[in-house]
């Protein structure tokens, strides 16, 4: 790491980037018309944009200043933070590409290079980015290290293995056994030991000495961010709900990709304050909230706006989702006094690494707590752990709670599999049944 590089990075971080961001903000005022069905937008949206743009913007100044790690969304990033890595979340980046409706372009690059169209689109987009250097975020620094945990899927492991091979860089893998019944003592021991084993590897890789005190601060901060995020989501129990889940899909980004950094904690404090205020003042995310819905699975990134508007205009609001909840659900296990075992429990029991009995119970609870009237499940080709079992979850919840539900077959980021006609018809039919059951 060069001194000049470090200085340049520090300058951009503290002065350059904020200045440029505010300039950019002045320029960006081409607004698309928003449906009158929506309530006033969150003021914090602006801050979110700033944080994320700055994060991607700063990435350009990272080479030479910091080591770069590419990290999966479920990996215990706190450990990397203790070694001061600059972290990039390819899943987050792929979602960004998807949201810009460029997913198919990136996927095609990977497909033309021999990756099957049947693979996860986050992976294909990222591999397309790796092969071509293309990104809507300006420029992404190449990774020095890969950090991956299969607690969200095995796919990320195959995908990171592919990058590690292609770029010939090390991959640190946190192997998290699936919780088929419950986490065993052996599982916790295995997970904790793996974390401990990583320390000397990271020390050698970075040339830095692990500082337990510093690590504990990071861990605490991370937990606080997750907990605050959890509180924000809980506030959506209010009627009318102060946010839609589509807002939350966006506000999720810092807890996923900046977790453990002060910026994330400050951000959620701000958001909590605003959401709390809205609840007290009775300001809803949509102007006339009549039906409350739950969303299951990852967002359909290229159709967020369409879906939000479709439902808002029918006076329906998504007030909770299994997806957004995932970064808050298990954070209670974290215990600074016993960091390794408690991280094993936190990271080992997240929704996608847990059995479907657990998921059913969680959804049941969410449906009750949030006063949910109906459920939309996104069955996504890309994500097997999220999608295999959905048909039976739906059956169980519909039967038990008399909950109207619909499943739409789509994908997280590859817009080519979206069939507008088919989906619109299904959603309209769903809305009709919803109105029937709740009125009758």
């Amino acid at each position: 790491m060069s001194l000049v590089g470090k200085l340049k990075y520090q300058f951009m971080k503290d002065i350059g980037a904020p200045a440029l961001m505010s300039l950019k903000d002045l320029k960006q005022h081409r607004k698309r018309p928003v449906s009158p069905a929506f309530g006033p937008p969150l003021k914090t949206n602006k801050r979110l944009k700033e944080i994320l743009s700055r994060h991607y913007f700063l990435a350009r100044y990272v080479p030479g200043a910091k080591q770069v790690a590419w990290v999966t969304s479920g990996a215990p990033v706190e450990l990397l933070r203790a070694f001061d890595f600059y972290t990039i979340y390819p899943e987050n980046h792929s979602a960004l590409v998807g949201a810009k409706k460029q997913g198919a372009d990136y996927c095609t690059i990977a497909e033309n290079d021999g990756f099957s169209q049947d693979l996860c689109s986050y992976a294909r987009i990222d591999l397309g980015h790796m092969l071509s250097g293309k990104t809507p975020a300006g420029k992404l620094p190449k990774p020095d290290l890969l950090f991956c945990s299969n607690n969200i899927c095995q796919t990320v492991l195959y995908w990171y293995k592919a990058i590690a091979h292609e770029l010939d860089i090390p991959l640190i893998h946190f192997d998290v056994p699936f919780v088929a019944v419950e986490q065993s003592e052996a599982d916790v021991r295995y997970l904790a030991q793996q974390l401990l084993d990583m320390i000397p590897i990271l020390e050698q890789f970075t040339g830095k000495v692990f500082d337990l005190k510093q690590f504990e601060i990071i861990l605490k901060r991370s937990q606080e961010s997750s907990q605050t995020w959890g509180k924000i989501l809980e506030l959506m129990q209010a009627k009318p709900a102060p946010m839609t889940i589509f807002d939350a899909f966006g506000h999720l980004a810092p807890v996923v990709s900046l977790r453990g950094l002060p910026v994330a904690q400050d951000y959620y404090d701000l958001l909590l304050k605003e959401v709390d205020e809205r609840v007290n003042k009775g300001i809803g995310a949509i102007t006339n909230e009549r039906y409350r819905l739950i969303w299951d699975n990852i967002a359909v990134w290229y159709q967020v706006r369409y879906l939000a508007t479709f439902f808002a205009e029918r006076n329906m609001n998504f007030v909770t989702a299994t997806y957004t909840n995932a970064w808050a659900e298990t954070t209670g296990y974290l215990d600074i006094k016993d960091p390794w075992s408690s991280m094993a429990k936190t990271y080992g029991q997240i929704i996608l690494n847990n059995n479907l009995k657990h998921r059913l119970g969680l959804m049941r609870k969410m449906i009750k707590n949030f006063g949910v009237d109906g459920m939309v499940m996104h069955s996504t080709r890309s994500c097997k752990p999220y999608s295999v079992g959905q048909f039976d979850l739906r059956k169980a919840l519909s039967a038990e709670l008399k909950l109207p539900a619909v499943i739409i077959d789509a994908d997280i980021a590859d817009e080519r599999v979206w069939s507008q006609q088919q989906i619109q018809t299904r959603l309209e039919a769903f809305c009709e049944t919803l109105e029937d059951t709740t009125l009758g």
Partner: protein
Amino acid sequence: MADNCFAGVDVGSLSTDVVIINASGKCLAEVVIATGLNGGETAQKAFDQSLNQAGLAQEQIKAVTATGYGRASVAFATGKTTEISCHGVGAHHLFPNTGTVIDIGGQDSKVIQVDERGRMLDFTMNDKCAAGTGRFLEVMAHRLELGLNELSDPLNIKGETVQISSTCTVFAESEVISLLAKQTPREQIVNGLQRSIVNRIWSMVTSIGIHGEVTLTGGVANNQGLVLVLEEKLGKKLNVPENPQTVGALGAAHIALRGYHK
């Protein structure tokens, strides 16, 4: 005529083609008829017609190579070879500098790499899905109430286009329906469709690579609009034979000739 002659019979899903050549490779007859329910009978009929056309008696044909998906049903064949090899050899004889052959047929499409002697080095074939084949265009032409000729019009390619993103024929068809419902001009839809089929084929092209000159064979090569899009993507001109659908039969005839002299 004392000359030894050789025939290639290509029994495809839509048409059965016969080509007869003499020992020096000169083409003496070329027949294309629709494949009936019975591939064997159709082959015989086409073969008889071609003998007629060339003014030859059956004894003068020293070897017959059958190809195409109905190749096993050709009773009078002396050998059989897949249409993949045949398209490679046929394209090589028409355009000796060919390195890559793109064959877009009714049911299948293939990309074939050949060496300087026309021998196959590598190939790939579409998966079960019809999205990169002539069938896709037929379905869409029907939906747009256009003849294949109108669909092929190169003028469509010059103007504006729409994105047809679905990779599945069935979904693409429903996309076309909604575009029509939105009053999107038909020529824009056609433009989008041509680009979508080329994208589909392109992944096969990249998996084989572009080597030397590229020759397009199969009935779809008559689609001028598609040729234009493919050339745009390729960044160079394609070799398009005068009778692209008989290249397989031509290759088969040459294989028959080569086998006879071995």
